[in-house]
């Protein structure tokens, strides 16, 4: 018994596009691990500083961009200062895009979770700094734990670190309340090993779905305080931030796509058992 896999692709495409065109929403249940991230970020006060490591390429943009948007906007609305960095060679474009889009949306007034925020202009060097990219993540994390200036003598735009207002008096992770790593790949584990293990930084992870199950042991051991895995994690954070975006929109498609895949798995198993039975009868 054989079945051309292209029929699976076609039916999945039809279901996904069909569901996308059908306007409805699905309830999103909030997990404790996603809530932990939101609670920690929401508890930050004006003037506090965090480090956001945007360690993903465009190929993981679908799952991690919504998290970066939601958390960065929450921080800027609360006037929390953010140090952006990337340990992924194509991650610079990701940060650039997020900063560009968020600068636009922050100009408008908004109310999130019942709190009114006045529109404002975010200023590079005052509200945030983007350090840019350096290779060899483990070495860079180690070096940043000593002094940000060691791996990053200038920021992404070529400005010497010491002349950036936000970096004056900021030496290393000691001045950051927490680190959030949005990661696709083994950089997440390097943050656990070198960032948390060496310097004890309070660390939260937003990872791709593929990595999700592998990260739960670190949550249980307390090496990370929060975890947002895949599009579901991103949708949970969007809901918690009261800032619906592409992740929440994508969850309704996930629902029907998963139902279809479960049906295919059941059909595959029935086919397998039936073939085995027929072979035995022969």
């Amino acid at each position, binding site marked *: 018994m054989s079945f051309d896999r292209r029929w699976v692709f076609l039916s999945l495409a039809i279901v996904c596009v069909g569901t996308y065109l059908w306007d409805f929403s699905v309830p999103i249940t909030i997990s404790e691990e996603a809530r932990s991230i939101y609670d920690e970020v929401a508890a930050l006060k004006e003037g506090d500083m965090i480090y956001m490591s945007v360690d993903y390429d465009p190929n993981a943009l679908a799952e991690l961009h919504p998290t970066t948007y939601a958390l960065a906007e929450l921080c800027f609305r609360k006037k929390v200062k953010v140090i952006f960095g990337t340990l992924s060679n194509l991650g610079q474009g990701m940060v650039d895009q997020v900063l560009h889009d968020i600068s636009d949306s922050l100009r408008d007034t908004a109310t999130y979770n019942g709190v009114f925020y006045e529109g404002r202009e975010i200023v590079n060097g005052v509200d945030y700094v983007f350090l840019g990219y350096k290779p060899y993540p483990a070495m860079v994390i180690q070096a940043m734990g000593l002094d940000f200036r060691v791996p990053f003598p200038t920021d992404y735009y070529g400005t010497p670190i010491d002349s950036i207002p936000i970096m004056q008096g900021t030496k290393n992770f000691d001045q950051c309340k927490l680190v959030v790593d949005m990661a696709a790949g083994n950089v997440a584990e390097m943050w656990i090993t070198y960032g948390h*293990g060496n310097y004890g930084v309070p660390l939260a992870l937003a990872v791709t779905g593929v990595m999700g199950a592998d990260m739960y042991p670190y949550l249980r051991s307390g090496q990370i305080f929060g975890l947002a895995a895949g599009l579901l994690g991103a949708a949970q954070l969007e809901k918690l931030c009261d800032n619906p975006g592409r992740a929440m929109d994508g969850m309704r498609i996930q629902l029907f796509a998963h139902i279809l895949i479960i049906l295919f798995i059941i059909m595959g198993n029935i086919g397998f058992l039936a073939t085995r039975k027929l072979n035995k009868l022969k």
Partner: protein
Amino acid sequence: MEWSTFLWTTLGAFLTLCTFSFLYKDNPFYKFAEHLVVGVSAGYFALVLWHQILIPNLFARLNDGDWYFLWLNSAQLWYLIPAALGVMMWTRFSKKKSWISRWPIALYMGIAAGMAVPREMHARVIEQLHSAMRGIIDWNNFFGSSVFDTTSGIASIIIFLGTLAALFYFFFSKEHSGVFKGISSFGIWILMIGFGASFGYTVMGRISLFVQRIQVLDDWTAVSWQGDHGGFVFFWFLVFGVFIVWAVFEIVKYFKNKGTTAES
């Protein structure tokens, strides 16, 4: 809407369709998109290495010296050591001199191993061992919490025994028979549950990628149908028209071949 935005969005939409065409079968459109991604990524990375790493981290630090003295008059002379190690790596291109490149590789491997071994051991072995066992040594964990709470005593026992059983499955010095077969089977179940969770997340991840592409194509449609881009819309319709005609041609050929095979 700016022309550049329209143009890039259209190109993105076109490349998306080119890439998806591989799901049917390998074809020139897919090849074009694939080569473009590889080429653009390599070129971009080369520029990033120059502008973001070599200039600020090396040349700017040696800037107080003179290049015609090979920066030997710089106050931060020691930055020439990693620079020299980097240059030594280029000897890989010579068959006779390639042995020189082993020195920087050996140095790097030594530093990396020295740095990684104790920290990896602590973060990924000792911490995990501690985490797997600490839940069962505190009696308070056994009262008042749900079995689905991963910190509860019962959940901790399941995790602890599951870890041992999964490890035992890979222990081949003892034949898996009798009691050991039972432990090993329990280990397989634990592994399968783990793989199942990973598979579920992976499916979600892959669907997420497709969902994002649908959203991009939707954005492209929104961009194309508003504003004065008649000429471009016509041009891209032509491009997509060719694409669709080719796809229809291939589908017809597929069913024709299928019919011929069935007859023979």
